[in-house]
C-alpha cells in the first residue's frame, strides 16, 4: 500500500498531510481528537535539511498545540552518506532532532511511530526510535545492515549468519526481530483505523515517558541479558 491510501485507511475522518522534499507533515482527525503527522517518505536519507525541517515541525507543535499527540511516519534508508554532510556534523543535527522529540515527550505529547517502509540505523535512531511506542506494517524493513554486507564486514560466512538468524533475533534484519527484542510494540498485518486508535488510547492511558523496551525485550525472550545487567548495575 502506498502512503496516501494508507493514510486514508488509518484516518477515515480525514487528514491534510502533504509532502515537501520527502518530509510529510499535517494533521489528522481521530476519535481522540486531532493528531499531528510527521515523517519522511520514499526511504529518505536523513540529511541536515530533513532533520532540521522535522525538528522545526516538532518545536512548532510544542508551541502551537500543547499536548497534541504526534504520529511519526517512518520511512528512511538511514543517514545521508556524503562528506559535505559530515563536515557540518550530521550527528549533531540528528541529535538536535532527537532532543526536540524528547522535549515534546516531556511537555506531555504522546508519540507513536509507525514504520511504513524502511527503518535503518541513524535515520531510525534520531526520530522513529525516539517515539514512546513504535509499530510496524508487516511489510516494513527494519535493519542496520543486510546480511551479505554484514558477512563482508565481520568476515563471518554468509551461510553461517543466515543459519544463526533462524534462531537468534540479535543481528538479522526484520521487524519481527525488533518486536522480540522490545523495540517494536506490534506488527500490523492489515493497517486499520481501529488498530491505530487502540494504540493511541493505550498510549494515553499508560502515561508513557519511561522507556519500557528492556522489560519488553526480556518478556518476549528476544533480549535476555540487557534487563538483568541494568538491574545488576543498580544493585552493585
Amino acid at each position, binding site marked *: 500500500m502506498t502512503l496516501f491510501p494508507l493514510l486514508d485507511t488509518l484516518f477515515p475522518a480525514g487528514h491534510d498531510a502533504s509532502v515537501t522534499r520527502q518530509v510529510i507533515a499535517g494533521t489528522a482527525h481521530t476519535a481522540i481528537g486531532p493528531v499531528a503527522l510527521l515523517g519522511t517518505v520514499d526511504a529518505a536519507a536523513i540529511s541536515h535539511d530533513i532533520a532540521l525541517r522535522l525538528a522545526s515541525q516538532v518545536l512548532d507543535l510544542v508551541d502551537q498545540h500543547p499536548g497534541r499527540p504526534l504520529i511519526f511516519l517512518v520511512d528512511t534508508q538511514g543517514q545521508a552518506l556524503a562528506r559535505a554532510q559530515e563536515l557540518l556534523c550530521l550527528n549533531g543535527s540528528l541529535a538536535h532532532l532527537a532532543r526536540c522529540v524528547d522535549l515534546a515527550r*516531556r511537555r506531555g505529547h504522546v508519540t507513536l511511530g509507525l514504520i511504513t517502509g524502511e527503518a535503518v540505523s541513524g535515520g531510525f*535512531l534520531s526520530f522513529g526510535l525516539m517515539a514512546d511506542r513504535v509499530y510496524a506494517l508487516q511489510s516494513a524493513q527494519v535493519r*542496520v545492515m543486510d546480511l551479505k554486507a554484514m558477512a563482508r564486514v565481520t568476515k563471518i560466512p554468509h551461510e553461517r549468519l543466515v543459519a544463526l538468524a533462524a534462531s537468534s533475533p540479535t543481528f538479522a534484519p526484520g521487524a519481527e526481530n525488533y518486536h522480540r527484542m522490545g523495540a517494536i510494540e506490534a506488527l500490523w498485518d492489515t493497517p486499520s483505523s481501529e488498530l491505530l486508535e487502540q494504540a493511541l488510547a493505550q498510549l494515553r492511558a499508560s502515561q508513557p515517558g519511561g522507556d519500557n523496551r528492556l522489560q519488553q525485550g526480556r518478556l518476549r525472550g528476544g533480549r535476555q*541479558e540487557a534487563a538483568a545487567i541494568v538491574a545488576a548495575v543498580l544493585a552493585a
Partner: protein
Amino acid sequence: MNLPQPSPPSRGPSFYEATARQRVNRLLDAQSFAEFLPPQSAHSSPHLALLDLPGALDDGVVIGSGTLGGKPVQIIAQEGQFLGGAVGEMHGAKIVGLLQRAIRDKPLAVLFLVDSGGVRLHEANAGLIALSEIMRAVLDTRAAGIPVFALIGGMCGAFGGMGIVSRLCSAILMSEQGRLALSGPEVIETVAGVEEFDSRDRALVWRVTGGKHRYLMGDCVALVEDDVEDFRQTIITLLAQWQENPPEPHALRAEQERLTQRCQQFSGMRDGLEVWAALGVPNPQQIPLLERDALVTLRQGLSL
C-alpha cells in the same frame, strides 16, 4: 568501521594510546575508582560466542564511580581496542544501567569516555536498540539535573549512534586526535566512492571529522591536549562553573537557528579548509599545524 590511526607525539600519558581502564584510573583521583560489574564477576557476550568469537569480560566498556578533584562522579569508558568499542547488548546495558544509577545516586556529573564506531554489527539489532536506550537515558540524566560530559580522544573516535549520543551530552571535550561524525569515512567511501570520501587520506579525514574542526565549528566546547591529565584538568574547570539547564523550547529554538544558519552559510563545502576560510581564518592551511593553545587563541578571535 574506523581503522586505528597512528598518533602524533604528545606530552604526558597519551589519552589516545591508553586503554579504557588506564584512562579511568588516570582521569579520576588516585585510588578512587570503584568498578560496577568488574571482570571477575562478569561473563562475556553470549552473542559473540555464538558467532565463534572470543568476548571480553567487560564487553568493551568499564563503568563505575569515583571522585574528581574530590567531587563524586560516575564514569563510563569504552574500550576502542575491543571490536572498535562498538555497542552490543551487554555493553549498551551497562551504559544504560550506569546512567539510571546516576539519576538515583546523583553524582556531580557523569563522564562518558567515548571510543566507539557505533553499533556492533555482530549484535546489530541489540546494538541499535541499546543506542536508542542510551540516547533516552542520557537525556533523562540531564533532565534530572546531572550533566553528562563526552570525552573524545580515542583511536575509534565517536561514530554512528555514538556520534549522536555524544552530541546529546551536556558538552563534548575533544583532543585534536579525536574524531566525531555519523558515518565513518570508510562507509561513505564504500557506498559513494573514493571521489566522495577517500578514507585513506588521513589529513582530509581530520579536516572533516577531527577535534580542531569540531572545535572551530563550536561542536565541542573544549579542545584539549592528547594527555589524560589535560582532560582531567579541563573537566575539573568546566565542572566548577557548570549549570545544567532543563530542556526548554527557547534553547532548542536557538540551536535550531544556529544549525539552520550554518547549513546555509557553508552550503556546498566539502573540506574543512573551505569552512575555515569562510569563518575568517586568515591562513586555513596552517590550522592542521597549529598547537592547541594557538588554535584556542585563534578561535577566540573569530566572531562565532
